[in-house]
């Protein structure tokens, strides 16, 4: 099978005498389209949940939508959003809690992976480290709500040790509540980074480490100077995936803090949910969605593309 136009002409000329040829030509055109046909259903399905809602949100963001008809309001929603300290607060909280949580998870997971990856004994029991990740996020949220807020086990243990006198007022403190959400996320998702880091480290050539060891380098030095730089693409991919999931944090906020106190733990997802489905201010919520969509597209183009390119080779 050749793709040059010359062979096509030849095929057309011979066509009347050889009955097989016309079929082959049609199948050739089909051949060019075949890969597109294969990928099309998936792309159409995904356009249905990204492009359609995206356009819908953009259109809706120029209307005041309560229950009844849509009233066009121009850029009012965006102007209001610009001056809405709760919206900026939600963006800030999402970034702040996400950044702290992600850094903690990365450092802890790297430390654990460093100690675990060449240890045959740990390898067999690795599944223990994964347990938190295998619970539903809503279940984990309830574990931490009960442990820290409702049953106050954490306070009780600190009192028994003698560190504090009375129960901690976690609920009424902004940083207490933030710390609780961060802890919940760290507990559940550090295993995610851990398993990826361990896989990345185990995939590296053991002989390089062995050679460095024979040269008298200590284990920590080998890790820091050789293994870690080689791990950069793996770390990038893992952090990008985790970072995206952290910024969409919703179940924890919904169950544990409801965004409080004083909107101190409200994430952008919860802000959109609250404006849309609690106050039924759909146009306004859509405007917030559009802003978030723009941020997502920029991040996806700049960060994600690069991470997944380098992760592949």
């Amino acid at each position, binding site marked *: 099978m050749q793709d040059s136009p010359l062979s096509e002409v030849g095929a057309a000329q011979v066509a009347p005498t050889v009955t097989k040829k016309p079929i082959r030509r049609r199948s050739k055109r089909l051949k*060019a389209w075949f890969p*597109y046909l*294969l*990928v099309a*259903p*998936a*792309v159409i*399905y*995904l356009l249905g*949940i990204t492009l359609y*809602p*995206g356009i*819908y*949100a953009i259109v*809706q963001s120029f209307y005041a939508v309560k229950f009844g008809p849509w009233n066009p309001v121009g850029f009012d929603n965006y102007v209001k959003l610009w001056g809405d300290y709760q919206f900026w607060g939600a963006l800030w909280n999402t970034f702040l809690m996400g950044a702290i949580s992600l850094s903690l998870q990365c450092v802890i997971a790297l430390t654990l992976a460093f*100690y675990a990856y060449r*240890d045959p004994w*740990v390898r067999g029991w*690795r599944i*223990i480290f994964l*347990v*938190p990740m*295998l*619970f*539903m*996020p809503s279940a984990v949220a*309830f574990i931490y709500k*009960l442990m820290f807020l*409702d*049953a106050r*086990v954490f306070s009780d243990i600190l009192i028994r040790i003698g560190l504090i006198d009375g129960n901690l007022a976690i609920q009424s403190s902004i940083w207490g509540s933030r710390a609780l959400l961060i802890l919940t996320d760290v*507990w559940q998702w550090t295993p995610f980074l851990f*398993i990826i880091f*361990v*896989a*990345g480290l185990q*995939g590296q050539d053991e002989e390089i480490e062995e050679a460095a060891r024979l040269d008298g380098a200590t284990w920590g030095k080998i890790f820091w100077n050789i293994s870690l730089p080689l791990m950069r693409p*793996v770390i990038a*991919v*893992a952090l990008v*995936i985790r970072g995206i999931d952290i910024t*969409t944090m*919703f*179940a924890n906020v*919904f*169950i544990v803090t409801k965004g409080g106190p004083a909107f101190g733990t409200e994430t*952008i*997802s*919860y802000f*959109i949910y609250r404006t849309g*489905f609690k106050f039924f201010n*759909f146009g306004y919520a*859509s405007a917030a969605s559009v802003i*978030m*969509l723009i941020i*997502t597209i920029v*991040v996806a183009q700049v960060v*994600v593309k690069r991470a*997944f390119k380098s992760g*592949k080779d």
Partner: protein
Amino acid sequence: MASVRRTKSENLYIRYLILGSWALFCLMPVLWFLSIGFRPRTEIITAQPVYFPTFSMDAWHMIWSDWPMAKYLRNSVAAIFGSVVIDLVLAIPAAYSLSRYEYRGREDIGFYILSTRMMAPAIVAIPIFFLFRNMGLLDTIWALMLVYAAINLSIVTWIIRSYMTDIPKELEDAARTDGASDLRILWEIIIPAVLPGIITAAVIAMIFAINEFLFTLLIASTPDAYTMSVALANFTGGSDGLIYNAIALVAFLAFVPVFLVVVAIQKHLSRGLTMGAVKG
């Protein structure tokens, strides 16, 4: 020589101290929550936490008799199973196309599929809610099925694509010279060869579907469409507040199957979680 050996054993000591304490940190809340599931409600929220509760199966009986637990389970299983089937039907041809053909726009299509994974559910929540309302699908498991399939399609495609890329070209070429069509090659050679990848993708899609919370919360408004993830948030007894022992049991009911399948695909887990980018 002696000093070298001592630092080595000291290292081991530190290593197991750190790993051991993290394992404890992981397991203690889980074990404690398990104990919540098997204690009477009177011993859950008290002035002083109860560390040695009396054993009780109250919650177990309650979730089956007072709550439509069987229905929640059925909803979860149907929605998740359906969504995984949709995903595989769409993703396998797409992954085949992205991994085995050269054509214009391939990289961009691949990246577009990946980028849908970056979309926060909250961004599309309102339009999707209206879409399903207009279609009359609100509060049905069909809507959940479609949404779960959409959420996971990018992940499933990329995982399978990564496995398909690894298959040597010769395998295909041999079949092609025998005159096999592209679809037959996909069905008879490629799919059997990437079966571990397909299973990994299906398992990971299943886990994310079980975990899904925001869409389910918006779509499901009665027990007709509650799944386990959202049903948890509805175990409230009015003025009595949350029924934690029931919540704990449901949490473990969802945990056990996930744990078992993850043990089964452990080797492929890191590759699956990174959508094929990290080969474990």
